[in-house]
């Protein structure tokens, strides 16, 4: 992707002012995006992202420079400019690249670049038609299609020289349901670390009908009551609760400077006994999976919480230094425009013992969140919020009428102790996670869980 000799020169230049570590990240990414509106192709754009990121670390300080002027002269110039931020004697680090190879655990059978636009569009059209036909109340359907083929190379002054290729595909379906004075939306966006074969393996029509069903259900839903309730959160994208409420707080990004409520808590009980949580970047072809992270480290299965006990964090190289701990293969970044930091990959609560029927049946009066929207967290306080996309009341152990406009708020560490039932039906949902190092694909997952009490914010006082 970039001449090995040139990379060597860049690293040598980067270390010339006393840095103790330097890294070159090269990215070359092809992307296609298509938008279908009301069944017609509205816009499409394809392009190539290409650039180089240079990182220099000295102790705990880091310098990052990036450019897409990639001729040798420009690259040497930016390396030298970046190095100016350090003013020490060079440490004479000997460079010796060891080309690393491995077998990809993510088999791709249909690379997007070999698939014609018309095939991609016909999948979108199937989804659009299915959503539109679902009900007369569906007034608009938007379908987005994205694919990307990202090739990266990481080389550093410790001798690392390794490449990865990540192919991802996703379809985003949004249905709008409307009556004379209101509009509601439903959304589904399956994606994977796969090529076009994804759309042959999944039934996009079913996802589209589900998006339409959510919109129509919410159009005819009551306002959500306000107050504290037991809340049953279903599987798949429901895992966003763990992602927001705890996942971010377990990233070294926040732990290293003790800006997280979970700092210095390894070995302590942080959740109820039935909670085991994992971040696993190695699940074949999952949305958040990668062979190596964006610092060139192999991804792995990291146990975060086991039977309620905090076992580990997600750690990148720089924050690892501050913590005196090794990288866990969690260094990620949106693109060459970002310095890497610790991020999640596929993060989930492991399956438990209760069936979904038992969980609902044991809930006298509560809220059932069938599909979650997104949310956010303040890692320093642990306070989180997230939106329920499709919700229902639970009355006397049965799912009752639909409700809309529900937001769940609370405090991560508190909520973890209040998870009192964990289901058997573990499954995943796909999202884009935004944080310090940009927007990255992340899977969330969980089986159905019940939280004994959580504040539900709605528009109807009760």
């Amino acid at each position, binding site marked *: 992707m970039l001449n090995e000799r040139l990379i060597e020169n860049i690293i040598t230049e980067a270390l010339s002012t006393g840095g103790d570590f330097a890294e070159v990240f090269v990215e070359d990414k092809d992307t296609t995006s298509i938008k279908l509106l009301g069944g017609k192709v509205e816009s499409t754009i394809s392009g190539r992202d290409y650039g180089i990121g240079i990182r220099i670390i000295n102790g705990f300080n880091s*310098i990052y420079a990036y450019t897409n002027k990639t001729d040798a002269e420009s690259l040497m110039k930016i390396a030298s400019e970046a190095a100016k931020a350090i003013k020490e004697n060079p440490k004479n680090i000997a460079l010796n690249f060891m080309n690393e190879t491995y077998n990809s655990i993510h088999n791709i059978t249909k690379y997007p670049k070999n698939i014609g636009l018309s095939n991609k569009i016909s999948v979108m059209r199937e989804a659009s038609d299915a959503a539109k036909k679902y009900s007369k109340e569906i007034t608009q359907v938007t379908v987005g299609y994205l694919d990307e083929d990202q090739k990266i190379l990481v080389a550093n002054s410790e001798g690392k020289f390794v490449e990865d290729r990540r192919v991802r595909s996703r379809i985003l379906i949004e249905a709008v349901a409307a009556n004379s004075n209101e509009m509601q939306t439903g959304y589904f966006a399956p994606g994977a670390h796969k090529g076009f074969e994804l759309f042959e393996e999944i039934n996009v029509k079913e996802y589209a009908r589900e998006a339409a069903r959510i919109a129509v259900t919410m159009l005819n839903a009551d306002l959500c009551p306000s107050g504290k309730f037991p809340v049953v959160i279903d599987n798949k994208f429901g895992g966003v609760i763990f992602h927001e409420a705890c996942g971010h707080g377990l990233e070294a990004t926040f732990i290293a400077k003790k*800006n997280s409520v979970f700092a210095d808590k390894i070995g302590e009980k942080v959740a109820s006994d039935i909670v085991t949580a994992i971040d696993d970047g190695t699940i074949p072809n999952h949305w958040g999976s990668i062979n190596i992270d964006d610092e060139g480290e192999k991804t792995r299965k990291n146990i975060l919480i086991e039977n309620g006990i905090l076992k580990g964090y997600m750690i990148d190289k720089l924050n690892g230094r501050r913590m005196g701990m090794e990288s866990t293969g969690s260094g990620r970044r949106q693109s060459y425009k970002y310095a890497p930091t610790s991020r999640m990959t596929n993060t989930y609560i492991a399956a438990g013992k209760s069936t979904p029927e038992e969980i609902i049946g044991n809930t006298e009066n509560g809220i059932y969140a069938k599909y979650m929207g997104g949310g956010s967290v303040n890692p320093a306080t642990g306070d989180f*919020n997230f939106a329920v996309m499709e919700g229902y009341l639970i009355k006397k152990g049965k799912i009752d009428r639909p409700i809309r406009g529900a937001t769940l708020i609370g405090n991560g560490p508190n909520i973890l102790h209040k998870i009192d039932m964990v289901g058997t039906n573990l499954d995943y949902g796909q999202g884009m996670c935004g944080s310090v190092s940009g927007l990255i694909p992340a899977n969330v997952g969980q089986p159905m869980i019940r939280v004994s009490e959580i504040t539900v914010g*709605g528009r109807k*006082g009760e």
Partner: protein
Amino acid sequence: MEIRDLKEKIFEAGKEIGFEDMEINYISNKKFNCKVFDNSIDSYNISVEGGLSFRGVFNNKMGYSYTEKVDETSIELLLKKAKENAQVIENDDIEEIFPGSPVYEKVDIFSQEFAEVSIEEKMQLLINLSQKVKMLDKRVDKVLFNLYEDHESTRMIFNTKGLSKVEKGNIGIIYFSLLVKDSKDSKSSDILKVTRDFKDFNYEEMAKRVVDEAINLLGAEAVKSKEYPILLRNTAAASLLQTFIGAFSAENVQQGRSLLKNKLGEAIASHNITIIDNPHMKDKMASRTFDSEGVATKKCIVVEEGLLKTYLHNLKTAKKDGVTPTGHGYRNSYKGTLSIAPTNFFIETGDNEYDDLVASIKEGLIIIELEGLHAGANGISGDFSLAAKGYYVKNGKIEKPVNHITIAGNFYDLLKDVEAVGNDLDFAFPSESYVGSPSLLISKLAISGD
């Protein structure tokens, strides 16, 4: 190779493979940012980047492509992709390459003085701010996040209809958040400042504001769930407005994705609400003299005393509605296709002092921050239910800080329920647009807490 030379080569090659009108858009950006930790520089980032996008008309349809590898080797693929993309477009609305507006406003959004500020001064400013907050109150526990960032960017549009526009701008941002702690509680607060006048970064004033706010929030609790009159403080009101700006886009209106459809000339807000989009403010983030299609921008009254006056248009939507384009054609960098976005978009300042608004509340809440707007607010339906924090007010006086509550309502109802508007216009975190509002007194919203 210079962009101007590269463009000739692209247009020549494009003509050969059958493109009619063509355009290139080049955006380059020089960026600096730094963060400090424990009084020294923690991270330091520099970048020089650029991207080129091409769009061209092929059989009456517009095809798009882009590349960050800006050299001759990219021309063939750029044109091939754009042609493929044009051939699948089915939308019949006509998207055209624009020859240029008769007049363009002159607004200086590049400050030479700002460009000459040294890196040392910028880093020192952040160090000063970090040190100052710790001196102000011993309950200041730590700095959670701090960032100084500036951009110097150049936009160029050249097309085969003769348009040739270049605009250079710069801007600087400081974002700072901290945690305060006492024996029982800890609270965070943040502050944002955006300017192209370095003297505006007054670290002492910023330090005081962010520390005061965090200290005032210590001991916050939820309040009883019920409906309260709400004073939505300026930046909270601005961030809420920002979530719903899509509703004013003619594209969303035409596509049936805006509840403002068929509402032109109607009252959509209380009479004390006037909303303006002004791209010509010298000190504001989103100022520009031409939009992403090369159309001259102009000041635009979107809502006047509650009445909806216009939607925001690009060339395509204006043509469809048979109206004059408003200069709101927007492309998200060189990677996006054409859409619509406001520039500096804000609710006009009213004449109420903030303190008078607080004093007018018998029992209610001041909301200073809304969280999770990307998830808890639906840009289409207008429904929102958001985590919030602020203060409880009784008989015109702040009694206690409040958090762990949600505030819920509908944006369209809220616009009609504005009882008074403050004189304290401020802006939300910048996105593709820069959205502002004064503090708004709302007759009632549902609060969920205890």
